[in-house]
């Protein structure tokens, strides 16, 4: 049917406040409000919460998940949903790195060696997604393969290397009183945000994510985009793997699984971080800054619950609740204001 003439909406010019709301969206403000409430509550009830040391702990805890989430944000923003193989990529990479370190290759060579695997994993998954494979299913399969390869390589055993090693500075070193991993997190967060905001690559991420068909029509193909964003995500995973391995001076494929840590499955934590930050899952809306804040937010809540003596059950539950909450708020907010899919 040919559409009939649409009504002319003569919108008034937006005021400064409206501009603020428009730019940062209601959800970010809501998130900020919740964050403040939590912060205030924590300050009042947990005596050790508002110390500089604890604050540093929060940021440090947020760093690993945060870095991975920043990588995944590129995938999500470009409209390719998310990768279910984040932790498996990390698992393969941590084995690669530890093997390199154990063989005495030194940090630089091991680092490059690991990145080769990350690139292969990212490019191959990206290509499969780019030719039209469903991201969820492709990366679910890839997850099995990557994990299996890592386990096969290491015989499912712990690969350890002797301290002090060449990666000590990344694992346990610090700079101006901040752990180096925290510094890395901040640097990555800033450069990712600059990449998204200030470069034509970042612009393409947003455009393709907002409308893939229009992206194609204006000369931005999703095929190359899928490869690029998957590679970024994989490289971030690999970096996290290296940093974690440097901390514990060893590696095992299960380091990122929920059976190992108490805070739950790394892949899901990363996806949770991206979602809690308020990024649109359909793509085109959000930022890596949101993901970084999401990581800090989740870490803050987790930290508070630890200080209050909660076990891991309620803590995992809280993260789940935060995801579901943000999904629902997000879906209701976006309803009608944007075209679906």
């Amino acid at each position, binding site marked *: 049917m040919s559409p009939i*003439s*649409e009504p*002319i909406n003569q*919108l008034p010019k937006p005021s400064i406040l409206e501009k603020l709301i428009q730019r940062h969206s209601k959800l970010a403000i809501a998130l900020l409000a919740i964050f403040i409430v939590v912060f205030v509550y924590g300050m009042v009830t947990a005596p050790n919460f508002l110390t500089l040391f604890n604050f540093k702990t929060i940021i440090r805890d947020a760093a690993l998940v945060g870095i991975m989430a920043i990588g995944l944000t590129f995938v999500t923003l470009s409209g390719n949903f998310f990768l279910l193989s984040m932790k498996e990529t990390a698992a393969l990479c941590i084995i690669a790195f530890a093997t390199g370190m154990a063989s005495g290759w030194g940090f630089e060579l091991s680092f490059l060696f690991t990145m080769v695997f990350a690139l292969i994993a990212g490019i191959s998954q990206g290509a499969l997604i780019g030719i039209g494979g469903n991201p969820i299913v492709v990366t679910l399969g890839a997850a099995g393969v990557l994990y299996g390869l890592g386990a096969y390589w290491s015989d499912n055993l712990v690969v350890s290397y002797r301290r002090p090693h060449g990666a000590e500075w990344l694992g346990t070193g610090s700079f101006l009183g901040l752990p180096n991993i925290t510094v890395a997190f901040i640097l990555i967060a800033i450069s990712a945000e600059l990449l998204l905001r200030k*470069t*034509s690559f970042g612009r393409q991420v947003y455009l393709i994510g907002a409308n893939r068909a229009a992206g194609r029509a204006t*000369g931005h193909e999703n095929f190359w985009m899928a490869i690029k964003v998957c590679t970024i995500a994989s490289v971030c995973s690999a970096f996290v793997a290296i940093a974690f391995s440097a901390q514990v001076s060893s590696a095992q494929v299960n380091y990122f699984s929920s059976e190992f840590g108490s805070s739950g499955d790394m892949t899901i934590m990363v996806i949770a971080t991206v979602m809690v930050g308020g990024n649109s899952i359909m793509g085109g809306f959000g930022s890596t800054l949101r993901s970084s804040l999401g990581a800090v937010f989740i870490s803050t809540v987790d930290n508070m619950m630890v200080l209050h003596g909660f076990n891991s059950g309620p803590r995992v539950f809280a993260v789940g609740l935060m995801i579901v909450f943000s999904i629902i708020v997000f879906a209701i907010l976006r309803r009608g204001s*944007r075209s679906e899919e």
Partner: protein
Amino acid sequence: MEEQLLSLSKITRSFGAIHALKEVSFDVMPGEVMGLVGENGAGKSSLVKIIGGFDSGYTGQLTFANKQVRFSGPVMAERAGIAIAQQELSLIPTMSVAENVLLVGDNVPKIATKRQLIKLVEPFLSEVGLDYIDPATSVERLSVGERHLVEVARLIAHDPQLLILDEPTAALGETDSIRILEMVERLVKRGKSVIYVSHRLDEIFKICDRITILRDGRSVAVKNTKGLSVSELVNSMLGRELENMFPKRISTSSKTPLLKVRDLWPDGLLDPVDLDIFPGEILGLAGQLGSGTGEILSAIAGAHPIRGGSLEMDGNVFMPKTPNEAIKAKIAYCSEDRKHDGLFLGRPIIENLTSTALKRIGNFGILQPSAENGLANDIAKGFTIDNSRLPSEAGVLSGGNQQKVALGKWLAISPKVILVNEPTRGVDVGARAEIYQTLHKLAKKGTAIVIASTDLQEIANLPTRIIAFYRGLKVSELGYREVSAENILTQITDPFGAAKLER
């Protein structure tokens, strides 16, 4: 005289300041085929929506089967006995014909084997003339025409009193169209009433008993088909006073073509086409839905599959395979559906405007905000888009402003050729005039502009010359002096004189 089955009186429907329908009166007798004709934007779709219960925000009276009613939703209309076959099919391709026919509705059995379903649908299928197909075949194996018939079979399964067919043959070939017409005749014999909305005058003359003509949201006339001539009908359909929105047509253009299209054969066209596009002209491709004009444009831009052909510009012979290649050759293409692939609705307007030329606003991949703002402001000025609204989302704009953005973003690549399919679909009058002015200005500067449109006024008043298409065939070329609304209408609706032959 019999009682009317459906009667509408003084129906008015307005959207803001725009009246889609103004005091329309319309009625259908039992067992009658009522034709509904009018130009694009005359209000046919609005009227159909109201009758089908999709739109209840009207004023006026609607009487159906002697009861005054106001349907609050399509389900209500369906229960009352009104069924609508939309232009877009709602069949599930992966499912069988039988399952598709008995998909929804109160009378669909809750539990049934496949065989029982097949038995149940057989009468409906034979009613629409599909008794030769196996109800167990999946719909994706049927031809487009057969699918339309299956869709009608689903409607008939609800046993409606009144059937509305909204341009059922728009996308169909000759044979399939004939089958639709036969089916309508069969239904009417069984006492059903049909409202037949179509652009194809030959069909209207063939099957309709009476014809209601809409013009600018008013019902201007109800005529008996018998004794009516084509030209009389055409005259009542047009006759719209021309608002002063079209700039003076460009009469002359350069002698050497800018873009030569040779043997281009997009899927959907019956024959390859040759086009010469001159700099500084506005070329109009006239044709109805299904005539293939849109396919030609998108094929030139590398967005539609082709069987072969080539483009020649500045001595280079090439054929873009993706939109990207066309953009590199400075060919801009704006599709008819801006929401689908013309706009990034969730992104700011400024990003939309510069989306085609990221290289131009960047330096080694780093975006230069000043360059971007400058470029966007220039475009905004050219298209009369409010500068202060550049940072807000494209989604909040009205249809007209959205179209300006969708078109404007192509100025960023300083195109040599601009291809526009339906330049003003869903656009209000004010924005329309502005878009025409801008296109006109661009052509004067030496850009070649090609538009494809189903809007008769637009195609008759904007272009320098016109090439008319009918069902995937190029039928004629009209030069500057021959272009007139009547001329075009005959060429695109009835080029072979079939309607006149019948009468």
